[in-house]
């Protein structure tokens, strides 16, 4: 806990922001981050998606209730709610699809260590495991089973090159500083140091940006 957390706790406006609104902010942030980061980020652990699912369900029920009403005022409200609902759904869908795309691309990598597996939600883990099994079976029945036994592996690391591809952690991302912070970034010829002020935006390697983002000092844009 640092000074900001303490300040936030005594800040009367913090707790007055309704949970739903904070969830939406959190979802939007997770969505942007997931789409910008070259590797899979951790699945939000605090039950965010359970709450989001409940919210969406409630709104769908509300829409169904209001549909029978012929009052023009309700009708207008209905359109607003439905539009909001569609947008909310889009955020969740786009977020989940971005994750699935990353998982599909480097399935074996994300399944290879416990630490990486922990980034997936339970459902994603089940999906990834099953998907990999399907692929492996497909390879086996298409050609791999008639290979010599010592060539049937999919995770060889012969001659120092692993068969498992990993995401490129050196690719560039944009981050915005959420508070003043020093940042060091490796370059091709020389490394760079800079003191970021709050809301400064810089471009740097994801490998260098990662710890700032994870600490909440900066966010991906």
């Amino acid at each position: 806990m640092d000074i900001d957390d303490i300040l936030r706790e005594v800040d009367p406006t913090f707790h007055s922001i309704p949970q739903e609104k904070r969830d939406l902010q959190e979802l939007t942030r997770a969505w942007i981050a997931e789409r910008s980061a070259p590797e899979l980020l951790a699945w939000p652990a605090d039950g965010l998606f359970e709450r989001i699912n409940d919210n969406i369900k409630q709104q769908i029920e509300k829409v169904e209730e209001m549909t029978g009403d012929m009052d023009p005022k309700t009708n207008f409200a209905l359109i607003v709610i439905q539009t909001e609902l569609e947008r909310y759904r889009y955020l969740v869908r786009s977020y989940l699809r971005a994750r699935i795309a990353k998982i599909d691309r480097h399935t074996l990598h994300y399944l290879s260590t416990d630490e990486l597996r922990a980034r997936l939600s339970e459902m994603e883990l089940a999906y990834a495991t099953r998907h990999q099994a399907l692929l492996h079976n497909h390879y086996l029945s298409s050609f791999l089973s008639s290979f010599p036994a010592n060539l049937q592996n999919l995770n060889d690391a012969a001659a120092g090159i692993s068969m498992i591809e990993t995401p490129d952690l050196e690719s560039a991302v944009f981050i915005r500083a959420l508070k003043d912070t020093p940042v060091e970034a490796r370059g091709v010829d020389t490394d760079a140091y800079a003191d970021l002020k709050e809301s400064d935006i810089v471009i740097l390697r994801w490998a260098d940006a990662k710890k700032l983002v994870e600490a909440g000092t900066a966010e991906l844009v």
Partner: protein
Amino acid sequence: MPMYGDLGNKLVQHAKRTQNLTHLPPYQTELVRAVTREVRDLDKDVASLLEPFQGSFDPSADQATACTLLVNHLSMRRNKRCLLAYHRTRTDKLEELVWNGSDVLDLAGQQAGGVNGAAADSGAGSSLSPQEEDYFRQYGDLLSAYKGQWTDIDLTGSLEPPRDLFIDVRVLKDAGEIQTEYGAINLTKNSQFYVRQGDVERLIAQGYLQKLG
């Protein structure tokens, strides 16, 4: 004389070409078999080369054999990579089709229609190998299982950010009657409707409706 790896190279070229196509070209059964055979032959070569040494082969004492072994070793692994790349490119395509809601029967039909018209129902025109058809079905099951856990989201829905709740659509093919919360709509060819986008997204993706404006 064909060299080691020539066949593998062909597979990779097929894979590369497939990446830029909207449909899936016919599965190269013969080529896959030939490359696999090459791997087995190479493996036999290695075994017979090593046999006289009884497990005590010293590369520095017999550099010519060591070199042959290395080339064989690398060629086998290269062939394996080519095969993996070829199959993965195709499964990627298949998965894309599953996400877009295609049907395996549609697929076989399309292919036969494109190649030899009337022979659509013979099944001989399918561009998928039997293994790929299995894979297609199994992946479809997997995806619906995953989707089923997000019933309120419609995971395979549009990835375009929604702008308008309601859109104008024109009906391209008869799609029968659909239920919306404003009652039933009968979608007959060439008619035009102002409908809720969420209600017709699937039909647009499948080519029954066209979005206007």
